């Protein structure tokens, strides 16, 4: 292998090539809708959210209380032993201050996604959600937070029935 003599394939295109119409492209925009069924365990989870509570499941064999709920324990590979009501409070495990959208557009104020370990579930067992009513500079790992719910009549059985989690003392 002689790196000096070897010719490498690959023609890099620049924005200018497109502006000046030097490159031909064909565009395709998929128009598809997907309707995802909830399944058994997440169906119950969403019902719980509509009622203003978080739901987990327990496995008697590994003694874990898990959230999000699932119908089977992936460790023990057996059916879980029922649903458990959890608290709507928890502890921030990690977070980010996100200034861009999925299509790389910038936003002025950050979104604050976080993993929140839910009280009542096994240690470090958490869900992803957003933080709100907080100064971004004051968010800390290990901070205690509580769910801020939509009004009962606005809840539809979705993870967004919780608007966000806010700090609690």
């Amino acid at each position, binding site marked *: *292998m*002689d*790196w*000096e003599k*070897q010719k*490498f*394939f*690959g*023609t*890099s*295109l620049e924005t200018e090539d497109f502006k000046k119409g030097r*490159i031909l492209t064909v565009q*395709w925009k*998929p128009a598809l809708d*997907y309707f*995802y069924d*909830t399944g058994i365990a*997440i169906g119950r*989870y*969403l019902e719980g959210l509509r009622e203003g509570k978080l739901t987990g499941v327990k496995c008697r064999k590994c003694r874990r209380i*898990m*959230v*999000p709920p*699932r119908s089977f324990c*992936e460790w023990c590979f057996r059916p879980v032993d029922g649903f458990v009501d959890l608290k709507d409070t928890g502890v921030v*495990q*990690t*977070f*980010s*201050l*996100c*200034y*861009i*959208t*999925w*299509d*790389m557009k910038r936003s002025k104020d*950050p*979104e604050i*996604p*976080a*993993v929140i370990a839910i009280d009542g579930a096994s240690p*470090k*067992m*958490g*869900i*992803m*959600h*957003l933080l709100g009513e907080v100064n971004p500079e004051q968010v800390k*790992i290990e901070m205690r937070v509580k769910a801020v719910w939509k009004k009962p009549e606005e809840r539809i059985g*979705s*993870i*967004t029935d919780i608007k966000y989690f806010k700090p609690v003392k």
Partner: protein
Amino acid sequence: MGLGKVAVVGAGMTKFVRRSLETPKELSWAAVKMALDSCNLTIDDIDAVCIGSAPDAFDGVHMKGEYLLDGSGGWRKPVMRSYVGGGTGVFTPIQGWYHIASGMFNNVLVVCEEKMSSCQPHPQGAFITIFDHTTERPLGPNLLWIFALEMNRYMTVHGLNKKDIALVSVKNKKNALDHPCAQIAENITVQDVLNSEVLAWPVQRLDVSPPSDGAVALVLSSEHYAKRITDKPVWIEGVGWCLDSAYWTDRDLYYPKYVEYAARMAYKMAGIREPRKEINIVEPYDPFDYKELHHLEGLLLADKGEAPKLTALGVTQRNGNMPVCPSGGLLGVGNPIAAAGLMKIAEIFWQLRGEAGKRQVPGKPRRGLAQAWGDLMQVGTVVVMGI
């Protein structure tokens, strides 16, 4: 175990670029042609083809393996595409390895291709569906979230600063200056990284590898054939892979346990008891600067939380005791997902043969490791190679 020995005997790659004129088939063809030429074989010598490529959503092409087949030399041959997220580029050669180690085939092509630029306005959009459709996607996530969440957890648990981590980006982009296929090689400083645009704190612009187009191909051969094809076969001594739960919010993200299990599997097969003494060069997966550190720890090549110190001490420089990403990595050469992982295997191949040109690490390395990672922080793939 009754498994046959398998060697890498040839390698080829295209340039990695932000947007290539060439189609995925043309990129694959070019990489395969170079790999075959490098070991004086023709497509008629090839018994089977293993293709690796990321989700169909990037190209908007269904059955991407079948689409890539003609450009990959797969016409009327046993062909299969494998996919394990970002881990694909190091998994596909493992697939090639068991094709041969099993005794089924003698000469196998491994081809990894990615063209991310077709997906507009940004290929990040194709990643959104990795999040759970019911419990996560309604929150409007983007791919950077998972990296930012993992990086923050890693930094906080070990009390690391951004400047400890930025050194990785500086090193890899500099190493890439010596790679003729590199997309974003440059001389930058730690301060440049710290001053770059904040995308999703703690992730900043210069912490991240770019989306890319490109292809890489390898020729793998059984012992009998390898010894006739080349005087410098590079043996695949150990392989390992492991996947963790997709319930990623239930795991502590500070440490990639699944990478450790994949590494232990590969070390055991290679008869490696003390990886820090026995592995001479490392190409861990570095789509973000912290990932190189995170993976060195998962690979048991650094104590937990100590990889940044190795970087600061220069141990991981090309002329250090354990060169890490001498190629320039994904941060410097570019990140066409599956092709980026296979580029790491090709780099170890060139380095162990003493053919890495300006990138050659000193001291005649005898053993190297390449690793990739992917999906919801859950895939570890590892290959150990030696001469």
